[in-house]
């Protein structure tokens, strides 16, 4: 029981990070029907941005409280990563809009390769690490043992919940989010109602990247180490999560992320750590056989 709860906790932590990245995939897919293959690498860039900012801030203002430093890093990383993503969309995707469907997809793969190589070039090929940002844990007594809860796990889950709530509020309740959903459902009509569609699409990339940056900073808090190649696997996992949850669905992305995280961790804990990826992808394959549009990706009943 205690072992299971412990693994559940680890799985949810990992799943939070996947879920945050998955939202970027699912939103962009929802609005322009394109898989942004560079998104995983944008996440990787955000980890580097977080790492550099953290080192910068702690060396400049040594005495700064860790909580304050983290908040500054988080906000700044979100802004800078959003800027990266905005630029990528502007340079690599927007000029291809209205071209054939595969063109932006190929461009995205190109962007992904560019980002990986760019970071390798400017940051070097080796792992970059920082000392643990948040230490410590407390034990939770269970009936038949103890569960260790690391403070950083709480931070990761807490931050995810807060930001997802804020994000959900923006999408569901503000005119900005409404414009976004309108573009997703009918771009032509949105333009007829005075919505600047290009700007709304840019904004979608910006929001997806900001959430990826949150995942990036949390990843840094959890692992404390990153290399130029670290965008690929989390990127693919998050993409899987988005598909599993039903691509285009925001709650689906979060649920998919949590599921992939849990499957991966529980499989490692009870069966074999070597086959954790196999397990995650097999579950995806099986789910898609029985639910081709994912868990929440139900096709809408629409009258014509």
């Amino acid at each position, binding site marked *: 029981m205690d072992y299971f709860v412990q693994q559940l906790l680890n799985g949810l932590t990992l799943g939070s990070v996947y879920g945050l990245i998955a939202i970027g995939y699912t939103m962009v897919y929802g609005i322009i029907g394109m898989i942004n293959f560079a998104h995983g690498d944008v996440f990787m860039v955000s980890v580097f941005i977080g790492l550099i900012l953290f080192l910068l801030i702690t060396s400049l203002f040594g005495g700064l409280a860790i909580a304050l430093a983290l908040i500054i890093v988080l906000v700044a990383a979100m802004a800078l990563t959003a800027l990266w993503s905005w630029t990528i969309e502007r340079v690599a995707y927007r000029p291809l809009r209205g071209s054939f469907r595969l063109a932006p997809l190929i461009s995205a793969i190109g962007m992904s390769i560019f980002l990986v190589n760019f970071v390798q070039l400017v940051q070097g090929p080796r792992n970059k690490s920082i000392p643990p940002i948040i230490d410590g844990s407390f034990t939770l007594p269970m009936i038949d043992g103890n569960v260790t809860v690391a403070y950083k796990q709480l931070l990761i889950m807490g931050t995810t919940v807060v930001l997802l709530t804020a994000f959900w509020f923006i999408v569901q309740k503000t*005119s900005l989010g409404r414009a976004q959903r*309108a573009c997703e459902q009918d771009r032509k009509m949105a*333009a007829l109602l*005075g919505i600047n569609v290009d700007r709304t699409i840019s904004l979608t990339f910006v929001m997806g990247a900001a959430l990826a940056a949150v995942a990036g900073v949390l990843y840094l808090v959890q692992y404390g180490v990153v290399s130029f190649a670290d965008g690929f696997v989390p990127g693919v996992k998050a993409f899987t999560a988005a598909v599993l949850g039903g691509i285009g669905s925001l709650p689906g992305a979060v649920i998919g992320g949590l599921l992939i995280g849990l499957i991966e961790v529980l499989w490692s804990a009870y069966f074999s750590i070597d086959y954790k990826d196999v397990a995650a992808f097999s579950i995806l394959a099986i789910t898609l056989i029985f639910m081709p549009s994912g868990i929440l990706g139900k096709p809408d009943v629409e009258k014509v």
Partner: protein
Amino acid sequence: MTLPYDPSWENAGDAPMLCVRGVRTYYGSIMALRGVDLDVYAGEIVTMIGANGAGKSTLMMTICGDPAARTGSIHFEGRDITRMPTHDIARLKIAQSPEGRRIFPRMTVLENLQMGAGLADPRHFDDDLNYVTSLFPRLRERLHQRGGTLSGGEQQMLAIARALMSRPKLLLLDEPSLGLAPLIVKQIFEVIAEINQRDGVTIFLVEQNAYHALRLAHRAYVMVNGVITMSGAGAELLRSPEVREAYLEGGRH
């Protein structure tokens, strides 16, 4: 009695609110509009009738810049809008209830109306909501229902209501009667007359249902294969044998 087309047909002293001149629109290499001239004056209801595929909906969309005219010009209140982006044209208070209604299916009726009000002063929202739901009481009952679950007639009402929420100067209505029961058609045409008379909204209406449209309109145009072949007062065209033969035979549908 065919009325040859003459751009200076009426209201020669006033500048038209909407002035379309020599507009040609293409889909790829296919010319859908072959040089259209048309005027809509402030306060009017103008209708354009024509068969399926005549180019009526293309003209509506070309006025809104999507697809933009390849040649010719479109002026609104004296301003050249021929190549303006669609969302900037909407900002000039031209609202459209387009072909196929284009309700946002996964938004509630209220959210659809909020989308329509995006360009209006937010302080008007409650008044405008009351106004459009008094025009179409059915929408009030359905306010929190998703747009995609409405019936065809309700969707049509919602499309018109959504267009009205921006407090437009010019309202473009593309086949508001399409696919609707006769009773609802009557109701919708009554509302169109009311919007025009009581609130002074200028209306440009495209219809296949020639009888209702011509009865309602101050002036009318007939479009065939992307060109305007006739124009005149609504009642006049209603009496014209050509129009009767081509568009009104088979009764007052």
